[in-house]
């Protein structure tokens, strides 16, 4: 069983890395980019029986800093 955790900066939180990526893409000649936000993807390989609540607790306790980040869990 797998879970994928997407950690993204909350809207409104300044993302200097996203902005640098944006500038680099424009430097390569890519036009039409409104904005870029960078985040993290964390893949968990879980034993049978791990509940959604377990994964959510992992996100809140460690994987995301909920002061500045949101998280989204995908189960497969």
């Amino acid at each position, binding site marked *: 069983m797998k879970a994928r955790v997407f950690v993204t900066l909350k809207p409104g*939180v*300044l993302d*200097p*890395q996203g902005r*640098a990526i944006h500038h680099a893409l424009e430097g390569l000649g890519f036009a039409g980019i409104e904005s870029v936000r960078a985040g993290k993807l964390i893949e968990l390989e879980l034993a049978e029986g791990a509940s959604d609540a377990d994964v959510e607790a992992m996100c809140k*306790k*460690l*994987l995301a*800093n909920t*002061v*500045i980040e949101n998280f989204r869990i995908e189960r497969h």
Partner: protein
Amino acid sequence: MNAAVIVFPGSNCDRDLAVAIREVSGRAPTMVWHGESELPAGLDLIAIPGGFSYGDYLRSGAMAARSRVMRAVVEAAGKGVPVLGVCNGFQVLTEAGLLPGALMRNAGLSFVCRPVGLKVENNQSIFTNGYAAGADITLPVAHHDGNYQADAETLERIEGDGRVALRYTGEVNGSANGIAGLFNPSGNVLGMMPHPERALEKAHGNQDGRRLFEGLLEAVA
């Protein structure tokens, strides 16, 4: 002064901090490894050093904040034991929930390593009583993630409560309100990005950090 310096894998200012404490107080601190579950008894100060604990994996300070020793540090802080976090130590304190907000990647993306101008915003604390109110001092910074951010409500609260200890006098890393150092509500926890232990002895060329340790010694003695 009975002090402890917490050491994580990847800490690199632990010895500097220990030398500073010994130099000023005349007593070497106990070095406490991150896997310990108990701290020495009767501590006057817990110091969390700079560096790159756990390789800055996930987020700066995130792993260290969840290490075994930090449970004891959080408990001690709750009982009023003074806790000083410098640089990575500040990041650990925010990740551990002892201080609000977060330290993000510097706004300019560069690692900033230079002396910076600071204003002592609040000298009514065990950490800053050695400075005059509003004193302009210079301390070195060396960090990649020193951009202090918190939501508007939190910023208003910490400003209103006088919890900003130190503020940058110029632009350094994009920090909200130029915050360089922050107290917890009861004033026994201070997190700061600048390094007072690197401005202590004559050979450092700047001794502005010395009064922090001297003031602390006087306050806890």
